[in-house]
């Protein structure tokens, strides 16, 4: 499949890395004090499968729902702001400034707003974290268009919405996907860290803090592994989506290669 092309090298690199990790630890640190070996983590994952799976579902739901809401809101805001030039000139710099707030630090405050045990506050953190990069980058892509392409459309008396569809949106896609790739890993981090402070107690975040508190590090790592898998699956999905949405883009990247 064309969309999957080019993923083999990172997979090989990952396997080699884990092999080294396992090898080095079994040579120098057989008791697994500092860092459990991959085999121990996988063992803990199997032993605690039901709990970890349940935690991954809950955290995964927070991540995915937060991502989707953040993306949708970010895109709507970007389209609105590019429609009205003054809005773009006032709101966009403001958004860049707000984006500098370490949103994850607001987790305890969000807990206060949405309820300590509700996953709503965790979702809200993810939404806020995803919203800004999507909004800022998409706005950039919608506005930083080739002048002559817009003039060409104007010379055909194309309507404003037609210009948005034919020129601005395709131009914004690479910007959007760059932000989206950044957002998927951020969303997982945000969800788990937010869960340290509140939300459902059977999610991955509390599982990590509780296991670590009881010095059951292999279980903590099993939960981390589950979080990693969520991030990896999402990232991979975005990569595939990117290739499907922008088949021409890989042509630009591979320029000069044979096909």
């Amino acid at each position, binding site marked *: 499949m064309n969309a999957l092309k080019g993923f083999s090298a990172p997979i090989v690199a990952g396997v080699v890395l884990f092999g080294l990790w396992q090898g080095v630890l079994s040579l120098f640190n057989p008791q697994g004090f500092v860092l459990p070996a991959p085999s121990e983590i996988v063992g803990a994952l199997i032993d605690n499968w039901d709990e970890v799976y349940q935690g991954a579902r809950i955290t995964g739901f927070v991540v995915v729902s937060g991502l989707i809401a953040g993306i949708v809101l970010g895109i709507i805001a970007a389209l609105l702001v590019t429609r009205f030039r003054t809005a773009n000139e006032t709101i966009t710099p403001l958004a860049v400034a707000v984006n500098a707030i370490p949103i994850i630090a607001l987790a305890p405050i969000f807990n206060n707003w949405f309820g300590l045990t509700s996953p709503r506050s965790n979702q809200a953190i993810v939404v806020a974290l995803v919203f800004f990069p999507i909004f800022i980058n998409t706005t950039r892509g919608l506005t930083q268009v*080739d002048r*002559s*392409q817009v*003039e*060409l459309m*104007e*010379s*055909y*008396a*194309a309507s404003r919405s*037609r210009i948005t569809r*034919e*020129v601005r949106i*395709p131009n914004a*896609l690479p910007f959007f996907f760059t932000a989206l790739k950044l957002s998927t890993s951020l969303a997982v981090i945000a969800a788990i860290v937010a869960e340290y402070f509140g939300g459902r107690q059977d999610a991955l975040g509390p599982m990590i803090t509780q296991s670590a508190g009881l010095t059951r590090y292999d279980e903590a790592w099993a939960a981390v592994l589950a979080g990693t898998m969520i991030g990896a699956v999402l990232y991979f999905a975005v990569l595939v989506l990117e290739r499907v949405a*922008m088949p*021409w*883009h890989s*042509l*630009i990247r591979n*320029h000069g290669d044979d096909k």
Partner: protein
Amino acid sequence: MNVIDIQGATKVFNPGRSNQVEALAEIDLAVEPGEFITLIGPSGCGKSTLLRLIASLISPSTGSVEVNAKPAEQARLDRDYGMAFQTAGLFDWRTVTKNIELPLELMGWSKGNRRRRAAEMLELVKLSDFAKHHPSELSGGMQQRVAIARALAFSPSLLLMDEPFGALDEMTREHMQDELLRIWKETGTTVVFVTHSIPEAVYLSTRVLVMSPRPGTIASIIDVDLGGRSAATRDDPAFFNKVTEVRVALRKVEE
């Protein structure tokens, strides 16, 4: 009835600001149907600006611009002209065929007609083998040819072309010149063509307008009456005389 009627048009960019540029001063121009006008002049003298005024992509600071006896704005809305820009301005996300079909889509042509016309146009610019490629896979000159095909696709009665052959090699350039002249003769289109090449201006046009540097004005108008063009025209002494005449006029404005 004139195809283009410009009276006392001036263009000042960013008026009243520190980056104010007086691009065009007092342009008067009347172009009759079927003429082939070239604009030639030093870089930055306002050739592209004048073309954009005619296309109503910008509006004049003072004066008036009419196309087909109506305000240029209305002519644009009526899609009275086709335009090829100085940069190819192709859409990377569309294949070569789809790029050529773009104006036809906007004009509501049926899919079958669009396909057929795009294929004809590709034939014309000798790029049939690249129909399904994306612009980023083409050389600069090939991209420029796609842009020309796109401008010609809907057979507009007025063609505005801004250095369309600038990126082409000499042989392709001469071929495209002959093709453009053939289309012009067959369709009776009026053409306004910007170029930096004196022989190109003489070979193509019925009138060469020599422009002076900023603020741009039409410094001299040279009528070219060489009859039908062919390969022999390029070696004709009358052709060389005209080339010299334009060169002298250009030298005068650059002093």
